[in-house]
């Protein structure tokens, strides 16, 4: 398991044109223009390796997992469980049984909220999150807190778009039962100091969930180094299929958690007098899982590790830095947050132009960006804007595309003088 993790640390030349050649969609045209895809925070294009892995599974014969005694079922089960081992290695988990396949990061968070946090919450207890969370890391906690009459406590973000760490620490109280925060902000691109935050929580005896939906595609994740209790990721945001995600959970914590959903696959024995459940991960995977999703996600992970997570990080950092430099020099453009550590996203607004109109004009040039609240309305409120434009960088973007973005924005300024 450690072998692949070692391998990804070795530095190598990052050839972005070679990377681009692996993505059929990037050769396509949008509104008659070559596609410049800068909406990677929302979802990503898929490399041939992922497309072919799924196609191979369907074409070579497909069986259900964990039940058939026939060749196809055995083959599919092996591929599915191999995928689990791959994700575990990618996160540097100790044991593949610490990885549970879910429908996405959202379901993974809900699973933890329901099966781990809800049974531990009593009236007046607290769950600590941050102001920069995606709705998926807000709403599950609101629901569980409401139900248990517990309090959802929110740590503030400063004007640079960074988490106020001393405020976070001060908000950890003797009623805090759980903390959840994002590794990388989907709006601001801020990279949180995960290891430090986890230490602060553990010092108070508070278990932690880290939302890695934006981090897993672009940073090296080491759950042992972070000492995170739970870490979640989303397949489609990391060049894999939609409808698949993963939850990492420490083995001893998973072992004591009740099932999240009931059904086939997750049971040992079903009787009218009562049912017994599988050990994790099986206990948390009710029903036939998203087999092709898991296998496609493993192919995406292989693809990312082949490029090297450290190489990806420095490539994306250079492209984003170019974008920030260009945007910061433009009249009427205001970048939301200037974090010291940025990964992926640049959010901005243009004085006198609504983000929708910016996105529509850029779309006319084949440039795909996101306009809206980015599923982070409380953060928008913090910065006093209803919406922003977000350009989010992925492994295949280039500095030249940042120049094209700036060119497109100059056109926006002309239309809306």
């Amino acid at each position, binding site marked *: 398991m450690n072998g692949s993790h070692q391998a990804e640390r070795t530095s190598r030349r990052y050839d972005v044109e070679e990377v681009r050649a692996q993505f059929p969609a990037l050769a396509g045209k949008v509104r008659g223009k070559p596609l410049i895809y800068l909406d990677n925070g929302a979802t990503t294009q898929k490399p041939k390796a992922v497309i072919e892995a799924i196609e191979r599974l369907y074409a070579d014969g497909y069986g259900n997992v964990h039940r058939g005694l026939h060749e196809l079922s055995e083959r599919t089960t092996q591929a599915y469980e191999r995928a689990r081992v791959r994700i575990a290695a990618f996160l540097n988990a100790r044991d593949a049984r610490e990885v549970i396949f879910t429908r996405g990061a959202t379901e993974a968070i809900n699973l933890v909220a329901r099966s781990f946090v809800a049974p531990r919450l009593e009236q007046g207890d607290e769950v600590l999150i941050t102001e920069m969370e995606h709705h998926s890391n807000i709403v599950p906690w609101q629901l569980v807190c409401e139900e248990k009459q517990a309090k959802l406590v929110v740590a503030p973000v400063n004007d640079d778009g960074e988490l106020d760490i001393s405020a976070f620490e001060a908000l950890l109280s003797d009623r805090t039962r759980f903390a959840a925060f994002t590794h990388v902000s989907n709006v601001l691109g801020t990279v949180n100091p995960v290891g430090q935050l986890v230490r602060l929580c553990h010092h108070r005896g508070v278990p932690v969930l880290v939302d890695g939906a934006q981090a897993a595609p672009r940073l090296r994740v080491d759950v042992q180094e972070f000492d995170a209790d739970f870490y979640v990721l989303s397949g489609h945001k990391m060049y894999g299929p939609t409808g698949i995600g993963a939850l990492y959970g420490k083995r001893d914590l998973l072992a004591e958690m009740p099932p999240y959903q009931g059904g086939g696959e997750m049971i040992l024995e079903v009787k009218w007098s009562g049912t017994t459940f599988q050990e994790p991960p099986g206990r948390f995977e009710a029903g036939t899982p998203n087999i092709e999703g898991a296998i496609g996600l493993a192919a995406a992970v292989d693809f990312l590790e082949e490029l090297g997570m450290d190489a990806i990080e420095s490539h994306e950092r250079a492209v984003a830095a170019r974008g920030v430099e260009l945007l910061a020099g433009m009249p009427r453009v205001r970048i939301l947050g200037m974090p010291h550590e940025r990964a992926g996203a640049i959010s901005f607004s243009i004085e006198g132009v609504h983000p*929708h109109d910016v996105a529509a004009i850029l779309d006319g040039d084949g440039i795909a960006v996101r306009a*809206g*609240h980015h599923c982070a309305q409380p953060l928008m409120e913090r910065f006093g804007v209803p919406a922003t434009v977000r350009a989010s960088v992925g492994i295949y973007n280039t500095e030249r595309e940042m120049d094209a973005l700036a060119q497109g924005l100059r056109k926006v300024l002309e239309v809306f003088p």
Partner: protein
Amino acid sequence: MDEALRELYQEVILDHYRHPRNFGKLDDEARSVLGNNPLCGDRIEVHVRVCDGRVEAVGFEGTGCAISTASASMMTEAVKGKPIEEALAIAKTFHDMVMEGAPGEELGTLAVFHGVREYPSRIKCATLGWHALRAALEQSQQVVTTEADG
């Protein structure tokens, strides 16, 4: 800029965006309905004062893109002083034009929104204020959302 975009951002639309007409509240007697586009967070509140079956006064407030703001602004000009039935008929013609592609020639300047059809994600911007107007005239709801468009 290509042809379709140029049609979307015609001068008259940009002008109403920069200088929205009838922008602001009416008195307390007015009926108010908030139009909400949950997809983008745009909110436009429409106020109408009805007297003797006519739209005596109409105003709107809120934040929105060029399309939703200009559409609401031009809507207020189109329905001001009109009998309720006629205002509702204009709303229907506008709706049919942007949703179904009906010609909408009888709408006069409002026909500039015909081009919005090329951009399905923007249709809801164009209809936001109109949804609120209709609810205010029909006294059906206090808050409407574009998600009822289907």
